[in-house]
């Protein structure tokens, strides 16, 4: 098994408050790895720390076996680490296509920009129809598509999604879930999915970690976790 991302005893926090207390996590190549947990468990902080936007306090981040712990965010993006942040974080005053082109202007995707743009439009035909519309005027589901599409324009190897289902209707959650599966199966990406929506994640993920209070408390393949009495009780409501 090769790992695209490995976290070793990762610690971080904000100001004086420590949030992560030695997180160990591995994202398997070509698979969807889910990081699950409730509000305030440290899921988003883990992603922001991986990207370097929140600085790690301790521990190691390995990307394809290389130590990238202290690399600044823009360099991480340029070696293929991509984060689709929670809440979409789009630029309301820019059009759909401007979002995509801006992302594709990094050195990493420049050469293939045109090609990736077409692939992205194939994945999200709706975005192609609305290419000249301002992002602020899109519906919630379309905004999430655009956030994902913008991430794809960065030509990622490791694709990290922070709560892509947040605030979407069940039908749209299903669509997003299918899209994420496609990214694994057709785009051959390694996905790290952070979610509160355990049902949706269990449906598409291959391997999952459960985080509580900044520590990984449980890990295993999805099938194992589904049978785990603690998971059943606390998360699946069975």
């Amino acid at each position: 098994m090769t790992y695209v991302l490995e976290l070793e005893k990762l610690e971080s926090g904000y100001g004086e408050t420590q949030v992560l207390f030695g997180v160990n996590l591995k994202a398997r190549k070509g698979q969807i790895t889910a990081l699950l947990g409730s509000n305030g468990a440290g899921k988003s902080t883990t992603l922001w720390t991986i990207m370097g936007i929140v600085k790690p306090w301790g521990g190691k981040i390995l990307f394809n076996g290389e130590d990238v712990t202290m690399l600044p965010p823009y360099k991480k993006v340029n070696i293929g680490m991509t984060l689709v942040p929670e809440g979409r974080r789009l630029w309301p005053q820019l059009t759909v296509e401007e979002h995509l082109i801006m992302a594709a202007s990094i050195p990493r995707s420049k050469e293939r920009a045109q090609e990736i743009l077409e692939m992205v439009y194939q994945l999200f035909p709706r975005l192609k129809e609305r290419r000249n519309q301002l992002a602020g005027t899109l519906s919630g589901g379309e905004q999430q598509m655009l956030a994902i599409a913008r991430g794809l324009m960065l030509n990622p190897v490791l694709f990290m999604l922070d709560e892509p289902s947040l605030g979407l209707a069940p039908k749209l959650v299903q669509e997003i879930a299918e899209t994420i599966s496609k990214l694994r199966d057709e785009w051959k990406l390694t996905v790290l999915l952070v979610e509160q929506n355990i049902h949706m994640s269990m449906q598409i993920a291959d391997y999952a970690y459960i985080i509580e209070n900044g520590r990984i408390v449980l890990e295993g393949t999805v099938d194992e976790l589904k049978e785990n009495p603690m998971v059943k009780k606390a998360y699946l409501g069975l």
Partner: protein
Amino acid sequence: MEITKYLKKPSSYIMWLLIIVFGIVGVQYYAGYISASTAAIFMDLMKFIGIALSLAVIMSYTGYVSFGHVVFFGIGGFFTAYELSKYSQQILQGGNPYTIFLMGMLIGVGLSVLLAATVGAAVLRLRGAFFAIATIGLDYVILYLEMTYKGGAGGGEIYFNVSRPRFLEETYFVFFIAFVITLIIAYIVKVSKFGYGLAAIREDEDAAEVIGVDTVRYKIYAFMIAAGLAAIWGSVYSWRQFNFTPENFSLGISVDMIVMNVIGGLGTFIGPIIGAFIYYIIYRLTNTYLPQLAYIILGIIVVAVVSFLPEGVAGLIRSKFPNLRKYFE
């Protein structure tokens, strides 16, 4: 192939129109068809637009308010005045004042850019109000340093004389060159990939980072450009005034720059230009007819704009006339 060339660029028509109009005015003035007082209005306008655009690069494009931006205006002016007074003998004996002026300007601009890089590297890593406060502090530090300078006049004041036949007409073209340089640099920054990165920072800095914008470096570069442009205007202003006084470091000038940007509309290239026009007209009218109330009226207008037109005049035009949008970016 650069994919960014597909981005729709704001139109440059208005910029060229301004350059042509102000250029024609200059030629007419030189030929004697326009009075010195009318030309002075155009020179003031160029200066207002110039300083507004200099601040726009960091405040309006990038979203970081350089509250003490006047410090660079002051530094540019100081070194210009310093060089011109130091070599006053040569100038009196028929030396070319323009080479000395240019030297002073280059020193002022160079030091401003250097200072912006140093201060920026230290402070632009922080977000929010820290940067604004740090630039105010910087302005005071440099102001008090400058006031210890005992030139001929003492108290930080420098006087010099470069009067020559047709000084005013020539000075119009000095302003005009600075004007063209400022417009073109501000426009290029706005439409370049760099400018889109700055816009991304302004709208959402974390989102800019996750799409690979080197935010710290971009912010520092923007600050350096803004500082250099402000220094150019401080320099040509001193040249025209024949002096430099600590007044050139007054935060009032900073407030002028900020107000012009706010009135015109943040985030746009055209905003500071419109803002400068409006601000200048109000400023002239109130100072002529109601001088005691001038700043009160300006204050009320600013409050009204911020409350009712948060996107400024350019924003208003863009939302009312979508067809004109590309001219008002």
